[in-house]
């Protein structure tokens, strides 16, 4: 009984730091989506240079550890050029997660766009639409529904990856958990902390399932 009470006592402090975890996840994936749309369009464009540039970006961000990318942006960039100094740890983490997420989502978006039947582009062209118009009106709207499950998955990945920011001393849920553990000398704090992670994941899963249903009306 006392153990339960003790664990419940940590929850308010943990929830306070949950805001950082949650807001970092949401702003990063949203920025990541915008970045990834351009990367995906670049990768399927006819321009070899664009293809290579976007490919190199994706290769870099998927091929190096996320933790190292965070450190690089926060610690190394200011050494290269002092103008790159980012004072806010949150903003540094936000940039790292957005850039990283963009790389992962780009492949997802590219695959979703390319999974749309070729006949859709042909029909659009036969009706006089240009490439951009066909993408905007016909192809991308259809790929959105196919994007919902993998984007939901990306959210869930990023929620957990945000725990890496504790290493640049940003007080997220993970960092707060470690702090409580040191001060209370009880590793049991991991239990309520995990429950909070699970609750967030469950909420995202629910939202994305509903979105998927909503976008399936025409199928």
């Amino acid at each position, binding site marked *: 009984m006392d153990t339960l009470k003790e664990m419940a006592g940590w929850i308010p402090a943990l929830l306070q730091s949950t805001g950082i975890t949650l807001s970092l996840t949401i702003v990063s994936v949203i920025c990541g989506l915008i970045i990834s749309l351009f990367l995906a369009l670049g990768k399927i464009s006819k321009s070899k240079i664009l293809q290579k540039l976007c490919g190199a970006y994706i290769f870099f961000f998927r091929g190096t550890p996320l933790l190292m990318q965070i450190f690089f942006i926060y610690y190394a960039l200011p050494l290269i050029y002092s103008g790159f100094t980012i004072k806010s740890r949150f903003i540094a983490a936000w940039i790292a997660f957005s850039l990283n997420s963009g790389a992962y989502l780009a492949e997802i978006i590219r695959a979703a766009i390319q999974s749309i039947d070729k006949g859709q582009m*042909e*029909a659009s062209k036969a009706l*006089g639409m240009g490439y951009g118009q066909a993408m905007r009106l016909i192809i991308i709207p259809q790929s959105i529904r196919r994007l919902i499950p993998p984007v939901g998955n990306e959210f869930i990945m990023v929620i957990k990856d945000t725990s890496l920011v504790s290493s640049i001393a940003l007080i997220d849920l993970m960092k707060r958990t470690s702090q409580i553990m040191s001060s209370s000398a009880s590793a049991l704090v991991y239990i309520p902390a995990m429950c909070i992670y699970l609750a967030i994941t469950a909420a995202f899963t629910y939202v994305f399932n509903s979105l998927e249903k909503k976008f399936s009306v*025409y*199928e």
Partner: protein
Amino acid sequence: MSMIKAENVCKNFGDLEVLKDVNLTVEPGEVVCIIGPSGAGKSTFLRSLNHLEKITGGKITIEEKPLDDRINGVNQIKLSSKERTDILLKMGMVFQRFNLFPHKTVLENVMIAPVHVKKIDTDKAKKIAVDLIKRVGLADKQDVYPSKLSGGQQQRVAIARALAMQPEIMLFDEPTSALDPELVGEVLNVMKQLAEEGMTMIVVTHEMGFAREVADRVVFMYDGRVAEIGTPAEIFTNPKNERTRQFLQSVL
């Protein structure tokens, strides 16, 4: 004045020659059916006319306006993209697999190009679309999504969608080949009606009955070439080319 003039049209996919010196002239109001075995280049030829395929060589002229004059795939005719679109929009296209936009309702499918390409205002486009949907016999379906329609109904919507751009020529690429046999008739009827109204049409088809009844001329293609052209009577009852005879024997 000819509606379509194709001269010495050639098309290679790598080393494979799919069209070899194809010539065809189509007069206003004429219905031309292209028949022939699969792999003869019928669809490729049709798709070349509206730039879904780039030809390797030859000339294509639409209503006396030069569209292609290609040597080794390079077009000698320089058109701005607007000029090119204007010529291409004289042709409407209907595909074997309908290619309706699944995320748009029937009405939206028919309205989308007039609104976004021709920039007609929405009310006017809607009026045109509603009329066309009625004309193909689907007035009660205008607010449903394509997935709720049968193949025959989808194809009729696709015809309405192409007509909404008010083309002067309609290209049909095996419009009934993906349909269940009992649904073929309703699509052919819409096409017949269109032919009677004087639309210029090129129809790639395996429906010999339709070709015989509706076509003014029938083109038999074989191995990337036009092997024989003639009236339906000439082609179906008295074919001159040995290949035509063999083909008709196998399908009739």
